[in-house]
Protein backbone atom coordinates (compact mmCIF):
# COMPACT_ATOMS: atom_id res chain seq x y z
CA UNK A 1 0.00 0.00 0.00
CA UNK A 2 1.24 3.44 -0.85
CA UNK A 3 1.23 6.35 1.55
CA UNK A 4 -1.14 9.07 0.50
CA UNK A 5 1.55 11.73 0.51
CA UNK A 6 3.43 9.73 -2.13
CA UNK A 7 0.53 9.90 -4.56
CA UNK A 8 1.14 12.35 -7.35
CA UNK A 9 -1.35 13.70 -9.81
CA UNK A 10 -1.53 16.45 -12.41
CA UNK A 11 -2.78 18.96 -9.82
CA UNK A 12 0.13 18.50 -7.48
CA UNK A 13 0.44 22.20 -6.80
CA UNK A 14 -3.16 22.57 -5.72
CA UNK A 15 -2.93 20.06 -2.89
CA UNK A 16 0.59 19.54 -1.61
CA UNK A 17 1.75 17.35 1.20
CA UNK A 18 1.27 19.95 3.91
CA UNK A 19 -2.32 20.60 2.81
CA UNK A 20 -2.97 16.91 2.55
CA UNK A 21 -1.68 16.38 6.05
CA UNK A 22 -4.15 18.99 7.21
CA UNK A 23 -6.89 16.78 5.90
CA UNK A 24 -5.74 13.63 7.55
CA UNK A 25 -4.87 12.99 11.15
CA UNK A 26 -3.24 9.65 11.38
CA UNK A 27 -1.73 6.85 9.37
CA UNK A 28 -4.73 4.54 9.82
CA UNK A 29 -7.10 7.06 8.35
CA UNK A 30 -4.67 7.79 5.54
CA UNK A 31 -4.42 4.09 4.77
CA UNK A 32 -8.20 3.76 4.76
CA UNK A 33 -8.57 6.63 2.27
CA UNK A 34 -6.06 4.93 -0.02
CA UNK A 35 -7.91 1.64 0.39
CA UNK A 36 -11.14 3.37 -0.61
CA UNK A 37 -9.44 4.89 -3.65
CA UNK A 38 -8.61 1.37 -4.78
CA UNK A 39 -12.13 0.21 -3.91
CA UNK A 40 -13.82 2.92 -5.98
CA UNK A 41 -11.43 2.60 -8.92
CA UNK A 42 -12.16 -1.15 -8.93
CA UNK A 43 -15.96 -1.07 -8.63
CA UNK A 44 -16.91 2.33 -10.09
CA UNK A 45 -14.13 2.99 -12.59
CA UNK A 46 -16.15 5.25 -14.87
CA UNK A 47 -17.61 7.25 -12.03
CA UNK A 48 -14.17 8.17 -10.72
CA UNK A 49 -12.34 8.30 -14.05
CA UNK A 50 -12.33 12.10 -14.09
CA UNK A 51 -10.53 12.35 -10.76
CA UNK A 52 -6.79 12.32 -10.47
CA UNK A 53 -5.56 10.61 -7.33
CA UNK A 54 -5.38 13.81 -5.33
CA UNK A 55 -8.86 14.85 -6.35
CA UNK A 56 -10.26 11.44 -5.52
CA UNK A 57 -8.54 11.44 -2.12
CA UNK A 58 -10.14 14.76 -1.28
CA UNK A 59 -13.55 13.67 -2.56
CA UNK A 60 -13.34 10.56 -0.39
CA UNK A 61 -12.31 12.65 2.58
CA UNK A 62 -15.22 15.04 2.09
CA UNK A 63 -17.65 12.15 1.72
CA UNK A 64 -16.29 10.51 4.87
CA UNK A 65 -16.93 13.76 6.74
CA UNK A 66 -20.53 13.59 5.59
CA UNK A 67 -20.77 9.95 6.55
CA UNK A 68 -19.35 10.87 9.95
CA UNK A 69 -22.06 13.54 10.35
CA UNK A 70 -24.64 10.80 9.95
CA UNK A 71 -22.94 8.60 12.55
CA UNK A 72 -20.95 6.29 10.27
CA UNK A 73 -17.48 5.49 11.48
CA UNK A 74 -16.99 1.77 10.83
CA UNK A 75 -14.94 1.00 7.76
CA UNK A 76 -17.72 -1.18 6.37
CA UNK A 77 -20.36 1.55 6.71
CA UNK A 78 -18.01 4.18 5.31
CA UNK A 79 -17.16 2.02 2.30
CA UNK A 80 -20.85 1.39 1.63
CA UNK A 81 -21.55 5.13 1.96
CA UNK A 82 -18.77 5.89 -0.51
CA UNK A 83 -20.11 3.30 -2.95
CA UNK A 84 -23.55 4.87 -2.83
CA UNK A 85 -22.04 8.31 -3.32
CA UNK A 86 -20.06 7.14 -6.34
CA UNK A 87 -23.08 5.42 -7.87
CA UNK A 88 -25.80 7.96 -7.13
CA UNK A 89 -23.85 11.23 -7.02
CA UNK A 90 -21.43 12.72 -4.52
CA UNK A 91 -24.18 14.71 -2.86
CA UNK A 92 -26.67 11.86 -2.94
CA UNK A 93 -27.32 12.29 0.79
CA UNK A 94 -28.56 15.84 0.17
CA UNK A 95 -29.94 15.64 -3.34
CA UNK A 96 -32.16 12.58 -3.19
CA UNK A 97 -35.08 13.26 -0.85
CA UNK A 98 -35.77 9.68 0.18
CA UNK A 99 -32.08 9.12 1.02
CA UNK A 100 -31.98 12.35 3.03
CA UNK A 101 -35.08 11.29 4.91
CA UNK A 102 -33.83 7.75 5.53
CA UNK A 103 -30.47 8.97 6.84
CA UNK A 104 -32.16 11.10 9.47
CA UNK A 105 -34.78 8.55 10.41
CA UNK A 106 -34.16 7.93 14.09
CA UNK A 107 -36.29 4.78 14.22
CA UNK A 108 -33.49 2.40 13.30
CA UNK A 109 -29.76 1.99 13.84
CA UNK A 110 -27.48 3.86 11.42
CA UNK A 111 -25.96 0.65 10.01
CA UNK A 112 -29.41 -0.81 9.42
CA UNK A 113 -30.58 2.42 7.80
CA UNK A 114 -27.63 2.42 5.44
CA UNK A 115 -28.22 -1.21 4.51
CA UNK A 116 -31.84 -0.36 3.70
CA UNK A 117 -30.77 2.60 1.56
CA UNK A 118 -28.27 0.37 -0.22
CA UNK A 119 -30.91 -2.26 -0.98
CA UNK A 120 -33.48 0.29 -2.07
CA UNK A 121 -30.97 2.01 -4.37
CA UNK A 122 -30.18 -1.31 -6.07
CA UNK A 123 -33.90 -2.07 -6.47
CA UNK A 124 -34.63 1.36 -7.90
CA UNK A 125 -31.65 1.30 -10.26
CA UNK A 126 -32.90 -2.03 -11.61
CA UNK A 127 -36.35 -0.55 -12.06
CA UNK A 128 -35.11 1.86 -14.71
CA UNK A 129 -33.77 5.29 -15.54
CA UNK A 130 -34.23 8.13 -13.10
CA UNK A 131 -36.23 6.12 -10.59
CA UNK A 132 -33.63 6.81 -7.90
CA UNK A 133 -33.43 10.53 -8.33
CA UNK A 134 -36.48 12.74 -7.77
CA UNK A 135 -36.14 14.57 -11.06
Amino acid at each position, binding site marked *: *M*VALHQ*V*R*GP*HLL*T*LDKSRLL*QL*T*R*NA*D*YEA*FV*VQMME*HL*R*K*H*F*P*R*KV*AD*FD*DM*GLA*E*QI*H*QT*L*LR*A*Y*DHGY*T*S*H*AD*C*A*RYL*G*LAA*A*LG*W*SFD*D*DIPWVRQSLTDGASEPTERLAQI*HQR*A*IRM*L*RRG*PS*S*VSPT
Partner: protein
Amino acid sequence: MPKTERPKIHPALATPASNQPGDDIERHFFANCGPHEAWNEPEPEPETDTDEDLAEALESADEDVRKLHGSTASTPTECSNKHLTALEATLTDEKGPLAGLTVLLHRAEPPGVIEAKTDDVGFVRFAGLDEGDKHQLQIRGVPPSAWSIGKKAALPDDRAECSHAAKWSLSKSKRPKTHVAQQGESIWSIAQYYGIDADELWKANEALEKDDRSMHVLFPDDEITLPEDDDDDRQDVPVGKELQIECDVELPRLQFVFKDQEGKALETEAVVVSGGASAAELQPWFEGNLDGSGKIEVPMPKYDERASMLVAFDLKFPETSTTYEDVDGLEMEHVHQPSSAQLLFKPGHLDPLSTVSGVQGRLANLGYYSGDERGELGPLTKRALRDFRHDHELEPMATIDDEMRSSLDAESK
Protein backbone atom coordinates in the same frame (compact mmCIF):
# COMPACT_ATOMS: atom_id res chain seq x y z
CA MET B 1 9.90 14.81 -13.08
CA PRO B 2 9.64 15.25 -16.86
CA LYS B 3 6.16 16.05 -17.99
CA THR B 4 5.81 12.92 -20.11
CA GLU B 5 6.87 10.50 -17.37
CA ARG B 6 3.97 8.61 -15.84
CA PRO B 7 3.61 9.31 -12.13
CA LYS B 8 5.05 6.68 -9.84
CA ILE B 9 2.03 5.38 -8.04
CA HIS B 10 0.91 2.13 -6.58
CA PRO B 11 -0.05 -0.26 -9.41
CA ALA B 12 -3.52 -0.64 -7.96
CA LEU B 13 -4.02 3.09 -8.10
CA ALA B 14 -2.80 3.55 -11.64
CA THR B 15 -5.46 4.23 -14.22
CA PRO B 16 -5.57 1.66 -17.06
CA ALA B 17 -3.09 2.24 -19.86
CA SER B 18 -4.56 4.26 -22.64
CA ASN B 19 -4.89 3.07 -26.23
CA GLN B 20 -2.49 5.65 -27.52
CA PRO B 21 -0.40 4.44 -30.46
CA GLY B 22 2.80 4.72 -28.47
CA ASP B 23 1.63 2.34 -25.77
CA ASP B 24 1.99 -0.83 -27.84
CA ILE B 25 4.18 -0.32 -30.87
CA GLU B 26 3.71 -3.83 -32.27
CA ARG B 27 -0.06 -3.72 -32.05
CA HIS B 28 -0.15 -0.26 -33.50
CA PHE B 29 2.05 -1.38 -36.44
CA PHE B 30 -0.13 -4.34 -37.33
CA ALA B 31 -3.28 -2.36 -36.79
CA ASN B 32 -2.25 -0.16 -39.69
CA CYS B 33 -1.26 -3.03 -42.04
CA GLY B 34 -3.35 -5.18 -44.36
CA PRO B 35 -7.08 -5.21 -44.73
CA HIS B 36 -8.57 -3.58 -41.68
CA GLU B 37 -11.65 -5.78 -41.87
CA ALA B 38 -9.43 -8.69 -40.75
CA TRP B 39 -9.11 -7.11 -37.36
CA ASN B 40 -11.80 -7.78 -34.89
CA GLU B 41 -11.62 -4.46 -33.15
CA PRO B 42 -13.08 -4.70 -29.68
CA GLU B 43 -16.35 -2.86 -29.39
CA PRO B 44 -15.82 0.49 -27.66
CA GLU B 45 -17.09 0.44 -24.12
CA PRO B 46 -19.99 2.75 -23.39
CA GLU B 47 -18.78 5.97 -21.80
CA THR B 48 -21.29 5.97 -18.99
CA ASP B 49 -22.67 3.32 -16.68
CA THR B 50 -26.24 2.20 -17.14
CA ASP B 51 -28.48 1.92 -14.10
CA GLU B 52 -28.10 -1.86 -14.31
CA ASP B 53 -24.29 -1.49 -14.32
CA LEU B 54 -24.48 0.66 -11.22
CA ALA B 55 -26.77 -1.79 -9.43
CA GLU B 56 -24.32 -4.58 -10.17
CA ALA B 57 -21.36 -2.44 -9.10
CA LEU B 58 -23.08 -1.66 -5.80
CA GLU B 59 -23.67 -5.36 -5.20
CA SER B 60 -20.15 -6.44 -6.08
CA ALA B 61 -18.64 -3.59 -4.05
CA ASP B 62 -20.68 -4.79 -1.09
CA GLU B 63 -18.98 -8.17 -1.20
CA ASP B 64 -15.69 -6.38 -0.52
CA VAL B 65 -17.33 -4.12 2.05
CA ARG B 66 -18.34 -7.11 4.18
CA LYS B 67 -14.68 -8.06 4.56
CA LEU B 68 -13.79 -4.71 6.10
CA HIS B 69 -13.19 -4.32 9.82
CA GLY B 70 -12.05 -1.38 11.86
CA SER B 71 -13.29 2.13 12.29
CA THR B 72 -12.43 5.66 11.33
CA ALA B 73 -13.75 6.58 14.80
CA SER B 74 -12.86 10.18 15.40
CA THR B 75 -10.44 10.52 12.52
CA PRO B 76 -12.34 12.41 9.86
CA THR B 77 -12.44 15.69 11.68
CA GLU B 78 -10.92 18.89 10.50
CA CYS B 79 -7.48 19.95 11.54
CA SER B 80 -7.57 22.24 14.53
CA ASN B 81 -5.46 24.91 12.82
CA LYS B 82 -8.22 25.56 10.27
CA HIS B 83 -10.74 28.15 11.35
CA LEU B 84 -14.12 27.41 9.90
CA THR B 85 -16.80 30.02 9.60
CA ALA B 86 -20.00 30.73 7.69
CA LEU B 87 -21.46 33.20 5.23
CA GLU B 88 -25.05 34.36 5.29
CA ALA B 89 -26.81 36.48 2.72
CA THR B 90 -30.28 37.91 2.29
CA LEU B 91 -31.27 38.72 -1.28
CA THR B 92 -33.84 41.40 -1.95
CA ASP B 93 -35.10 43.54 -4.78
CA GLU B 94 -37.15 46.70 -4.53
CA LYS B 95 -40.32 44.67 -4.00
CA GLY B 96 -38.95 42.52 -1.18
CA PRO B 97 -37.22 39.19 -0.58
CA LEU B 98 -36.14 37.11 -3.55
CA ALA B 99 -37.18 33.52 -2.87
CA GLY B 100 -36.06 30.50 -4.86
CA LEU B 101 -32.95 32.05 -6.45
CA THR B 102 -30.01 29.71 -6.99
CA VAL B 103 -26.85 30.98 -5.30
CA LEU B 104 -23.46 29.38 -5.88
CA LEU B 105 -20.43 29.83 -3.66
CA HIS B 106 -17.17 29.04 -5.42
CA ARG B 107 -13.85 28.22 -3.77
CA ALA B 108 -10.76 28.99 -5.81
CA GLU B 109 -8.26 26.42 -4.51
CA PRO B 110 -8.87 23.56 -4.46
CA PRO B 111 -11.73 24.23 -6.86
CA GLY B 112 -15.13 23.62 -5.35
CA VAL B 113 -18.67 24.86 -5.47
CA ILE B 114 -21.68 24.76 -3.16
CA GLU B 115 -25.15 25.44 -4.47
CA ALA B 116 -28.14 26.60 -2.45
CA LYS B 117 -31.50 28.24 -3.04
CA THR B 118 -32.82 31.24 -1.17
CA ASP B 119 -35.72 30.50 1.15
CA ASP B 120 -39.02 32.37 1.45
CA VAL B 121 -37.33 35.41 2.98
CA GLY B 122 -34.49 35.43 0.46
CA PHE B 123 -32.03 33.95 2.96
CA VAL B 124 -29.19 31.60 2.19
CA ARG B 125 -26.38 30.26 4.42
CA PHE B 126 -23.11 28.53 3.64
CA ALA B 127 -21.38 26.92 6.63
CA GLY B 128 -17.98 25.32 7.19
CA LEU B 129 -15.90 27.73 5.11
CA ASP B 130 -12.16 28.07 5.62
CA GLU B 131 -11.24 31.69 6.34
CA GLY B 132 -7.99 31.26 4.43
CA ASP B 133 -9.70 30.38 1.14
CA LYS B 134 -10.81 32.80 -1.54
CA HIS B 135 -14.57 32.72 -2.16
CA GLN B 136 -16.77 34.07 -4.92
CA LEU B 137 -20.52 34.33 -5.09
CA GLN B 138 -22.67 33.79 -8.15
CA ILE B 139 -26.42 34.28 -8.46
CA ARG B 140 -27.78 32.23 -11.32
CA GLY B 141 -29.55 34.28 -13.94
CA VAL B 142 -28.43 37.57 -12.38
CA PRO B 143 -25.26 39.15 -13.83
CA PRO B 144 -22.80 40.70 -11.33
CA SER B 145 -23.70 44.16 -12.63
CA ALA B 146 -27.29 43.60 -11.45
CA TRP B 147 -26.48 42.89 -7.81
CA SER B 148 -24.46 44.60 -5.15
CA ILE B 149 -23.61 44.03 -1.54
CA GLY B 150 -25.33 46.56 0.67
CA LYS B 151 -24.99 46.13 4.41
CA LYS B 152 -22.14 43.91 5.54
CA ALA B 153 -21.87 42.87 9.19
CA ALA B 154 -19.76 40.36 11.08
CA LEU B 155 -21.68 37.21 11.97
CA PRO B 156 -22.38 36.75 15.68
CA ASP B 157 -20.17 34.03 17.20
CA ASP B 158 -22.96 31.49 17.59
CA ARG B 159 -23.79 31.69 13.87
CA ALA B 160 -20.19 31.92 12.67
CA GLU B 161 -18.86 28.86 14.46
CA CYS B 162 -18.85 25.63 12.46
CA SER B 163 -17.58 22.22 13.47
CA HIS B 164 -17.46 20.58 10.03
CA ALA B 165 -16.16 21.62 6.66
CA ALA B 166 -18.60 22.55 3.92
CA LYS B 167 -19.70 19.86 1.50
CA TRP B 168 -17.84 21.13 -1.54
CA SER B 169 -18.63 19.58 -4.84
CA LEU B 170 -15.66 19.18 -7.14
CA SER B 171 -17.76 19.44 -10.24
CA LYS B 172 -18.07 22.87 -11.75
CA SER B 173 -21.76 22.95 -11.12
CA LYS B 174 -24.62 20.63 -10.32
CA ARG B 175 -26.45 21.83 -13.39
CA PRO B 176 -26.71 19.08 -16.01
CA LYS B 177 -26.19 19.78 -19.70
CA THR B 178 -29.75 18.92 -20.69
CA HIS B 179 -33.17 18.73 -19.11
CA VAL B 180 -35.97 16.44 -20.25
CA ALA B 181 -39.25 18.34 -20.17
CA GLN B 182 -42.04 16.95 -18.03
CA GLN B 183 -45.77 17.50 -18.28
CA GLY B 184 -46.62 21.08 -17.41
CA GLU B 185 -43.14 22.55 -17.89
CA SER B 186 -42.25 25.47 -20.10
CA ILE B 187 -39.01 27.21 -21.05
CA TRP B 188 -39.85 29.78 -18.44
CA SER B 189 -40.38 27.29 -15.59
CA ILE B 190 -37.23 25.34 -16.51
CA ALA B 191 -35.26 28.59 -16.64
CA GLN B 192 -36.55 29.50 -13.20
CA TYR B 193 -35.65 26.09 -11.80
CA TYR B 194 -32.06 26.26 -12.98
CA GLY B 195 -31.75 30.00 -12.37
CA ILE B 196 -31.16 30.84 -16.03
CA ASP B 197 -32.52 33.80 -17.91
CA ALA B 198 -35.57 32.49 -19.86
CA ASP B 199 -34.65 34.37 -23.05
CA GLU B 200 -31.12 32.98 -22.88
CA LEU B 201 -32.52 29.46 -22.45
CA TRP B 202 -34.91 29.84 -25.38
CA LYS B 203 -32.08 31.20 -27.52
CA ALA B 204 -30.15 28.00 -26.84
CA ASN B 205 -33.17 25.93 -27.88
CA GLU B 206 -34.67 27.94 -30.72
CA ALA B 207 -34.31 24.93 -33.01
CA LEU B 208 -37.39 23.54 -31.24
CA GLU B 209 -39.47 26.25 -32.86
CA LYS B 210 -39.60 24.37 -36.15
CA ASP B 211 -41.37 21.54 -34.29
CA ASP B 212 -44.14 23.89 -33.14
CA ARG B 213 -42.67 24.45 -29.69
CA SER B 214 -42.56 27.86 -28.09
CA MET B 215 -41.38 29.39 -24.82
CA HIS B 216 -44.79 28.53 -23.41
CA VAL B 217 -45.41 25.15 -24.97
CA LEU B 218 -43.12 22.16 -24.75
CA PHE B 219 -43.99 18.50 -25.13
CA PRO B 220 -43.15 15.89 -22.53
CA ASP B 221 -39.71 14.36 -23.23
CA ASP B 222 -38.46 17.37 -25.21
CA GLU B 223 -34.73 17.62 -24.52
CA ILE B 224 -33.78 21.13 -23.49
CA THR B 225 -30.15 22.20 -23.75
CA LEU B 226 -28.98 24.15 -20.71
CA PRO B 227 -26.33 26.81 -21.34
CA GLU B 228 -23.14 26.56 -19.32
CA ASP B 229 -22.44 28.73 -16.31
CA ASP B 230 -20.36 31.77 -17.08
CA ASP B 231 -17.25 32.09 -14.89
CA ASP B 232 -17.43 35.87 -15.19
CA ASP B 233 -20.75 35.96 -13.34
CA ARG B 234 -19.07 36.00 -9.92
CA GLN B 235 -18.09 38.53 -7.30
CA ASP B 236 -15.52 38.12 -4.53
CA VAL B 237 -17.12 37.87 -1.11
CA PRO B 238 -15.73 37.82 2.42
CA VAL B 239 -16.72 34.98 4.77
CA GLY B 240 -17.76 35.23 8.41
CA LYS B 241 -20.20 37.95 7.36
CA GLU B 242 -23.87 38.60 7.06
CA LEU B 243 -24.54 40.27 3.71
CA GLN B 244 -27.50 42.21 2.42
CA ILE B 245 -27.52 41.74 -1.33
CA GLU B 246 -29.62 44.07 -3.40
CA CYS B 247 -30.58 42.79 -6.80
CA ASP B 248 -31.95 44.67 -9.75
CA VAL B 249 -33.90 41.79 -11.17
CA GLU B 250 -37.46 41.32 -12.25
CA LEU B 251 -38.73 38.03 -10.91
CA PRO B 252 -41.95 36.70 -12.33
CA ARG B 253 -45.08 37.20 -10.32
CA LEU B 254 -48.53 35.77 -10.79
CA GLN B 255 -51.31 38.17 -11.56
CA PHE B 256 -54.96 37.25 -11.23
CA VAL B 257 -58.03 39.27 -12.14
CA PHE B 258 -61.32 38.46 -10.48
CA LYS B 259 -64.55 39.27 -12.28
CA ASP B 260 -68.14 38.55 -11.46
CA GLN B 261 -70.42 36.56 -13.71
CA GLU B 262 -71.22 39.64 -15.77
CA GLY B 263 -67.57 40.33 -16.42
CA LYS B 264 -67.36 43.25 -13.99
CA ALA B 265 -64.15 43.36 -11.98
CA LEU B 266 -64.47 42.78 -8.26
CA GLU B 267 -63.22 45.65 -6.14
CA THR B 268 -61.37 45.37 -2.88
CA GLU B 269 -62.45 42.02 -1.54
CA ALA B 270 -60.03 40.29 0.77
CA VAL B 271 -58.35 37.26 -0.68
CA VAL B 272 -56.23 34.55 0.83
CA VAL B 273 -54.14 32.55 -1.62
CA SER B 274 -53.15 29.11 -0.38
CA GLY B 275 -51.11 26.35 -1.91
CA GLY B 276 -50.43 22.71 -1.26
CA ALA B 277 -50.13 19.32 -2.85
CA SER B 278 -53.81 18.57 -2.20
CA ALA B 279 -56.94 20.25 -0.88
CA ALA B 280 -56.20 18.80 2.57
CA GLU B 281 -52.68 20.27 2.70
CA LEU B 282 -53.36 23.87 1.74
CA GLN B 283 -51.24 26.42 3.57
CA PRO B 284 -51.82 30.19 3.35
CA TRP B 285 -49.29 31.73 1.01
CA PHE B 286 -50.49 35.28 0.49
CA GLU B 287 -53.08 37.52 2.12
CA GLY B 288 -54.26 40.84 0.81
CA ASN B 289 -57.00 42.78 -0.88
CA LEU B 290 -57.86 43.17 -4.53
CA ASP B 291 -56.52 46.46 -5.83
CA GLY B 292 -59.84 48.06 -6.82
CA SER B 293 -59.75 46.73 -10.35
CA GLY B 294 -60.07 43.09 -9.32
CA LYS B 295 -56.35 42.41 -9.57
CA ILE B 296 -54.01 40.71 -7.19
CA GLU B 297 -50.32 40.10 -7.75
CA VAL B 298 -48.52 37.42 -5.78
CA PRO B 299 -44.95 36.13 -5.79
CA MET B 300 -44.52 32.96 -7.80
CA PRO B 301 -44.34 29.85 -5.62
CA LYS B 302 -41.00 28.07 -5.68
CA TYR B 303 -40.60 25.68 -8.59
CA ASP B 304 -40.33 22.62 -6.39
CA GLU B 305 -43.60 23.47 -4.70
CA ARG B 306 -45.33 24.34 -7.93
CA ALA B 307 -44.76 20.99 -9.58
CA SER B 308 -47.76 19.38 -7.90
CA MET B 309 -49.40 22.39 -6.41
CA LEU B 310 -53.05 23.09 -5.96
CA VAL B 311 -53.81 26.78 -5.55
CA ALA B 312 -56.87 27.96 -3.68
CA PHE B 313 -58.35 31.44 -3.48
CA ASP B 314 -60.54 32.27 -0.52
CA LEU B 315 -62.47 35.36 -1.43
CA LYS B 316 -64.12 37.20 1.44
CA PHE B 317 -66.93 39.41 0.25
CA PRO B 318 -67.43 42.33 2.60
CA GLU B 319 -70.53 42.99 4.55
CA THR B 320 -72.94 44.90 2.32
CA SER B 321 -76.20 46.64 3.04
CA THR B 322 -79.10 47.47 0.81
CA THR B 323 -81.76 49.95 1.69
CA TYR B 324 -85.19 49.60 0.19
CA GLU B 325 -88.81 50.31 0.99
CA ASP B 326 -91.10 47.49 1.72
CA VAL B 327 -94.70 47.36 0.68
CA ASP B 328 -95.91 49.14 3.80
CA GLY B 329 -93.75 52.17 3.05
CA LEU B 330 -91.31 51.41 5.84
CA GLU B 331 -87.66 51.83 5.11
CA MET B 332 -85.83 48.61 5.68
CA GLU B 333 -82.18 47.80 5.57
CA HIS B 334 -81.05 44.38 4.53
CA VAL B 335 -77.52 43.44 5.53
CA HIS B 336 -75.68 40.73 3.67
CA GLN B 337 -73.37 38.89 5.97
CA PRO B 338 -69.77 38.50 4.92
CA SER B 339 -69.50 35.51 2.65
CA SER B 340 -66.65 33.65 1.04
CA ALA B 341 -65.93 31.53 -1.94
CA GLN B 342 -63.11 29.13 -2.58
CA LEU B 343 -61.68 28.61 -6.05
CA LEU B 344 -59.22 25.85 -6.78
CA PHE B 345 -56.90 25.36 -9.68
CA LYS B 346 -53.75 23.50 -10.59
CA PRO B 347 -51.15 25.68 -12.31
CA GLY B 348 -48.63 24.52 -14.87
CA HIS B 349 -50.56 21.54 -16.16
CA LEU B 350 -51.74 22.48 -19.61
CA ASP B 351 -51.62 19.87 -22.32
CA PRO B 352 -50.52 20.97 -25.79
CA LEU B 353 -53.04 22.97 -27.76
CA SER B 354 -53.19 20.23 -30.37
CA THR B 355 -55.04 17.98 -27.90
CA VAL B 356 -58.67 18.21 -26.78
CA SER B 357 -57.56 18.30 -23.14
CA GLY B 358 -55.21 21.19 -23.97
CA VAL B 359 -58.10 23.13 -25.48
CA GLN B 360 -60.27 22.29 -22.47
CA GLY B 361 -57.57 23.51 -20.07
CA ARG B 362 -57.28 26.85 -21.84
CA LEU B 363 -61.05 27.27 -22.08
CA ALA B 364 -61.27 26.54 -18.35
CA ASN B 365 -58.58 29.14 -17.56
CA LEU B 366 -60.56 31.71 -19.53
CA GLY B 367 -63.77 30.86 -17.71
CA TYR B 368 -65.59 29.16 -20.59
CA TYR B 369 -65.46 25.60 -19.39
CA SER B 370 -65.80 23.78 -16.11
CA GLY B 371 -66.37 20.11 -16.43
CA ASP B 372 -64.68 16.76 -16.21
CA GLU B 373 -64.87 15.68 -19.83
CA ARG B 374 -61.08 15.42 -19.97
CA GLY B 375 -59.98 14.66 -23.51
CA GLU B 376 -63.52 14.16 -24.82
CA LEU B 377 -65.69 16.50 -26.86
CA GLY B 378 -68.69 16.22 -24.53
CA PRO B 379 -71.65 18.58 -24.30
CA LEU B 380 -69.98 20.96 -21.82
CA THR B 381 -66.90 21.27 -24.00
CA LYS B 382 -69.04 21.85 -27.08
CA ARG B 383 -70.94 24.57 -25.33
CA ALA B 384 -67.68 26.20 -24.18
CA LEU B 385 -66.38 26.04 -27.75
CA ARG B 386 -69.52 27.71 -29.10
CA ASP B 387 -69.34 30.45 -26.44
CA PHE B 388 -65.69 31.13 -27.10
CA ARG B 389 -66.19 31.23 -30.84
CA HIS B 390 -69.16 33.56 -30.43
CA ASP B 391 -67.16 35.96 -28.26
CA HIS B 392 -64.27 35.94 -30.71
CA GLU B 393 -66.38 36.39 -33.83
CA LEU B 394 -65.60 32.96 -35.20
CA GLU B 395 -68.13 30.79 -36.97
CA PRO B 396 -70.40 29.56 -34.13
CA MET B 397 -69.92 25.82 -34.19
CA ALA B 398 -68.70 23.31 -31.65
CA THR B 399 -65.54 22.20 -33.36
CA ILE B 400 -61.85 22.83 -32.92
CA ASP B 401 -60.08 24.13 -36.00
CA ASP B 402 -56.82 25.99 -36.62
CA GLU B 403 -58.50 29.39 -36.48
CA MET B 404 -60.00 28.53 -33.11
CA ARG B 405 -56.67 27.21 -31.80
CA SER B 406 -54.78 30.29 -32.86
CA SER B 407 -57.35 32.56 -31.26
CA LEU B 408 -57.31 30.49 -28.07
CA ASP B 409 -53.51 30.51 -28.00
CA ALA B 410 -53.38 34.28 -28.36
CA GLU B 411 -56.00 34.76 -25.66
CA SER B 412 -54.26 32.39 -23.24
CA LYS B 413 -50.90 34.20 -23.24
